[in-house]
C-alpha cells in the first residue's frame, strides 16, 4: 500500500522536472530579446550585454536548464531583475491567495455538485432530475468571466453585499472571507455543473451493477446501498476530475484575480509576462505546474485509498 504512494510521488517529481525543462525551452523560443525589452529603446549594447550576463542568457541552453533545475532543487528560483528580490519569495507571497481561492472554489463546487448529482441519479427521469440537469448544463455553458462581471455588478455594486476588489485586510479573517465570496463563485460555478453531471452518470452506472443488486437482494437499507455501496465507487471518477480541475482552476484564477484585482499567482504571471520578467514568469509557472501535478497526485492517492484494485495494480 505504501509502495503505491511512494511510486506515485516519484512519478510526480519526474513530471515536474520534465515540465519545467519544456517550459524553460518554450519561454526562450518566444521572439524578442528580453534584455532589450526590459531596458527600453535607449539602452546601449553594453548595458544589454551586462543584463544578459546577469540573467545567464549568454550560456548554452543545456547549461542554463541544468543550472536552473539545480537552483530550483535548492529552493532558489532566481532573482527578479526589476526589484532585486528573490523570485521564490515573490511567488510564495502570492501562492496562498490563489491556493485559498482555488480550494474554496473547488470545495463549494464539490459540496454542491456531489449531492446534486447523487440526487439526480436517485430520482432519475423525474422533474427534479430534469431541473438539476438544465441547471448543470446552464452553469457549464456560462463563461466564468461573465459570472465574474455580473456577480460584481449585482452583489458588489447594486446590492453592495460583498466587496468588489482586493483580498481583504491581512489578519482580518472576516474581511478575507467576504473578499473570497464573489471570486470563488465565479471560479467554482461551472464546476458545480461538471461534477453534478459526472456524479449522476457514474452513480447511474454503478447502481446498475450486479453487486448493487446483491446488496438489494440481502435487504440492505437503501441509504447503506447508496452511501456505502454505490457512492464509494461512483465518487472515484469525480475525485480524479477534481484533481485535474484544480490545475484548470489555476488558469481560471488568472482572470478572476484580474477582474477582482486580487493578488495571486495568476495576476503575477500576467503582470510578469507583460513586462517580460523572465525569472518571475518561470518561477510562478513552475510553482503552478507543481501545484497542478501534486493536486492530481493527491487525487490519485485518495482514489487508491478508496479502491484496493488501484493501489495493488502497479
Amino acid at each position: 500500500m505504501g509502495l503505491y504512494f511512494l511510486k506515485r510521488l516519484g512519478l510526480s517529481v519526474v513530471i515536474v522536472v520534465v515540465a519545467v525543462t519544456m517550459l524553460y525551452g518554450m519561454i526562450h523560443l518566444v521572439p524578442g530579446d528580453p534584455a532589450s525589452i526590459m531596458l527600453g529603446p535607449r539602452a546601449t549594447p553594453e548595458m544589454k550585454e551586462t543584463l544578459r550576463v546577469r540573467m545567464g542568457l549568454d550560456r548554452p541552453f543545456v547549461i542554463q536548464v541544468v543550472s536552473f533545475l539545480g537552483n530550483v532543487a535548492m529552493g532558489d528560483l532566481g532573482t527578479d531583475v526589476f526589484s532585486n528580490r528573490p523570485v521564490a519569495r515573490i511567488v510564495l507571497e502570492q501562492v496562498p491567495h490563489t491556493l485559498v481561492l482555488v480550494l474554496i472554489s473547488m470545495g463549494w463546487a464539490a459540496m454542491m455538485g456531489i449531492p446534486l448529482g447523487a440526487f439526480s441519479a436517485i430520482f432519475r427521469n423525474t422533474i427534479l432530475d430534469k431541473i438539476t440537469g438544465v441547471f448543470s448544463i446552464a452553469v457549464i455553458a456560462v463563461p466564468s468571466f461573465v459570472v465574474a462581471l455580473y456577480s460584481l455588478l449585482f452583489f458588489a455594486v447594486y446590492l453592495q453585499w460583498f466587496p468588489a476588489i482586493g483580498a481583504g485586510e491581512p489578519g482580518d479573517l472576516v474581511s478575507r472571507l467576504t473578499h473570497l465570496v464573489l471570486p470563488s463563485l465565479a471560479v467554482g460555478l461551472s464546476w458545480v455543473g461538471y461534477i453534478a453531471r459526472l456524479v449522476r452518470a457514474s452513480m447511474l452506472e454503478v447502481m446498475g451493477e450486479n453487486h448493487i443488486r446483491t446488496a438489494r437482494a440481502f435487504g440492505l437499507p437503501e441509504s447503506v446501498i447508496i452511501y456505502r455501496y454505490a457512492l464509494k465507487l461512483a465518487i472515484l471518477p469525480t475525485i480524479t476530475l477534481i484533481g485535474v480541475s484544480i490545475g484548470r482552476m489555476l488558469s481560471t484564477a488568472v482572470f478572476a484575480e484580474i477582474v477582482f484585482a486580487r493578488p495571486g499567482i495568476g495576476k503575477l504571471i500576467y503582470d510578469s509576462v507583460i513586462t517580460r520578467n523572465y525569472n518571475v514568469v518561470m518561477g510562478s509557472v513552475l510553482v503552478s505546474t507543481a501545484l497542478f501535478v501534486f493536486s492530481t497526485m493527491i487525487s490519485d492517492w485518495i482514489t487508491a485509498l478508496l479502491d484496493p484494485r488501484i493501489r495493488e495494480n502497479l
Partner: protein
Amino acid sequence: MATEPVLRVHNLSVNFRTPRGPLQALRDVDLTIPDRRVSGVVGESGCGKSTLISAIIRLMSDNADIVGGSVHFQGRDLLKLTRKQMRAILGDRISMVFQDPMTSLSPVLTIGRHMTDIQYRDRIGVGEKRKRAVDMLASVGIPDPESRLGQYPHHFSGGMRQRITIAMALLASPNLLIADEPTTALDATLEVQIIHLLKELQERIGCAILFVSHHLNVIAELCDDVTVMYAGVVVEKGTVRDIFHRPAHPYTRALLKCDPAVIQEKTELLPTIPGEIPDLVDLPQGCIFASRCPEAGDICLEGPPPLVEIAPGHVAACVRLTEGGTA
C-alpha cells in the same frame, strides 16, 4: 401435502414495456416449492427463468410490470407487501445466490465488510458478527477464513467467490434459497463441487432451494422437482425421475436430446432445437412451442394447451397428451 409449501407462485404474469408494445415475458406461471425441497427451473436462454426470480424477490427492472398472479411465501403474498416489508424478508427468510460471482460483490469492500453488513438486523457486536462470518466461510470450504475477511473480492478465484456468496446467502439460515445459475460462470469441476456444497448445506440448514439453470446435469444432480419453462410458460413439471425418465412434453424431450452428456451416436454436429423462441410481443395463436415442435400438427395451432396431469405430480402442456395416451 400436509405442510404449507414455502413458496407458491400462482398464475404469475409479467410484461415488459417495449416500444413495440408489451412483451409478455411470463404468462400464468405456477410453481410450488414444498418445505425443504430442492426445486429446479430449467429452460434455454430467454425462457423467463430470470424474470421469474426477479418477480419473486421483486427486484425487477423499471420497465417490467407484474400484470397478474400471486407469490405466496410462508402464506404471505409477496406481491402485496410494501417495499419495507419485502426488505425485511430479503436476506433473512429468502436469500439469493447470483450467476456471476465476479461481479456480484462490491470491488471496494472487503469480504468481512460484506458479511457483517448483511447482519445489520442482528443487535450483536461487530466481533460476534465477524465470528459468525468466519464460521460460515469455514463451512463453505474457504481455508483460513479469519485472515481472508480483510481481503477484497478480486483476491479470490471465481469458485471461491461463489463459495463466499453462498456463505453470505446462508448466514441468516433462510427458509428459501434462490440460486440463479450459480454454476454457469464456473468450470465443470468447480460446478460439481459447488453443487455438492449446496446440497450438503441445504440438508444441514433445512431450507428449500429454488435452483435455476439451463444445465440439465446440474438439475438432475441437485433437484427433487423440476419445472421446464419455454418462452414464458411452464410446459412440464414433475419430479426429477419424471422429467428425465418419462419426459412428456416434446420440448423437454428435445432439451434432453441436446445435452452433450446423453449423446450416444457419433455425430458431426451437436444436436440443437431448430428455430428460435417466438416473438413474445406478438404471441402465436396456438401452442407456444408449435413452430419448433417436430410433432406439431394442425391441432396445435388452435389454442394454447392446458397443463394436463399425466401421473400424480407430473404435468405437461401438450394437446397430444389428451388426444390419446402418450404422444
